[in-house]
């Protein structure tokens, strides 16, 4: 039974990995760390999600996308639960996912306690960059400029 439920959880997880983040479609919601917990039994399929930022406008949409996807795969009584603890952090994003962010044109977050505070231009890899605005198109990003290739780019703020 234990193994069976683990298998079901892994199956759901692999389905959820097909859902891209609505604001950064290059990565999926599982990689982003938004999916926190899956409970699945005969009666209910419950997916706990956590917002990246407290006011993340995409979080409701993510809940809907999860429901839609799971219904498509035949799951019933799907319940989306919002959790705030433990608080989401950019440190949960793996190196592999950071590379995807970079290839997508977003400079990936540094580790919070890392001494390396340099922000790298995702286009030319230069670390000769400057902050233009601490706030940008979404709450999770800031706006920067590369002093070498002169391109503007966004950085995923580390929180």
């Amino acid at each position: 039974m234990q193994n069976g439920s683990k298998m079901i959880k892994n199956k759901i997880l692999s389905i959820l990995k097909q859902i891209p983040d609505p604001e950064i479609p290059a990565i999926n919601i599982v990689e982003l760390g938004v999916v926190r917990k899956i409970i699945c039994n005969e009666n209910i399929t419950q997916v706990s999600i956590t917002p990246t930022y407290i006011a993340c406008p995409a979080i409701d949409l993510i809940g809907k996308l999860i429901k839609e996807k799971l219904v498509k795969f035949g799951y019933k009584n799907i319940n989306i639960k919002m959790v705030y603890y433990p608080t989401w952090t950019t440190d949960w994003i793996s190196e592999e996912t950071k590379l995807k962010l970079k290839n997508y044109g977003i400079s990936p977050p540094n580790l919070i306690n890392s001494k390396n505070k340099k922000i790298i231009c995702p286009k030319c890899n230069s670390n000769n960059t400057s902050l233009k605005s601490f706030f940008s198109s979404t709450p999770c990003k800031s706006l920067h400029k590369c002093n070498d290739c002169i391109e503007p780019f966004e950085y995923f703020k580390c929180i």
Partner: protein
Amino acid sequence: MNNELFIFCLRLADNCLILAHRQSELCSKSPFLEEDIAQTNFGLDLLGQAEAIYNFAAEIEGNINTPDDLVYKRNERSFYNFILSEQPNTDFAFVVIRQYFMSVYLKIIYTTLSNIKDSELSGISLKALKELDYQINHFELWIKRLGLGTKESKEKIQNAINELWIFTGELFERDNLDLNMEKNGYLLNSNLFYKKWINYINDIFNKSNLNIPKDAYMITGSKNGIHSEYMGFILTEMQFLQRTFPDAKW
């Protein structure tokens, strides 16, 4: 305890909501583009905090009201935000000072809440704290720039401090409900709270060559739902649709 926790949460969430509304009014009206994005981001953060706390409060109340009911169906006398939160965006200096006073207040309150055992409320608080630091840093920069800037900018920011100071006494008032919340570890006692708050204010005002007004008369009342004339106008605009078309949905 539950009913008290419910009102305590409403007070906190109402502050976030009304501050968020004031910030949202700056959308497309800030001095320049980057500032516009910053102000609306803060508004969004505050709205997110309000939503999370209203959700939590609605559950404590036993889901009698939805968070939307709490926002759209209460009258002015049932809102408990500080009179400071509802003060208008008279000029940019007023925005900076109001938001700074309130974000320091929120930081102290969330820091206490982040240590209590209720994992949901402490989770919300921890999350809010991360974003609040951005606001505090941002407004400190503005206080410095305006205080140490030109004669006119200094006059304007000092004027905003003088005008808004009379609303700050309320931040440290304690009624019976607050005292019970203190006992349960949800709130710092008034003296300690004030000390922490005034340390922030003194520190940045000293660096910015600005002064705290002396012996000001303090206006209070929000814990009993008494507000300034501005509150009615905010609710009129915010609740218009739900009042005109009850339970309208997207």
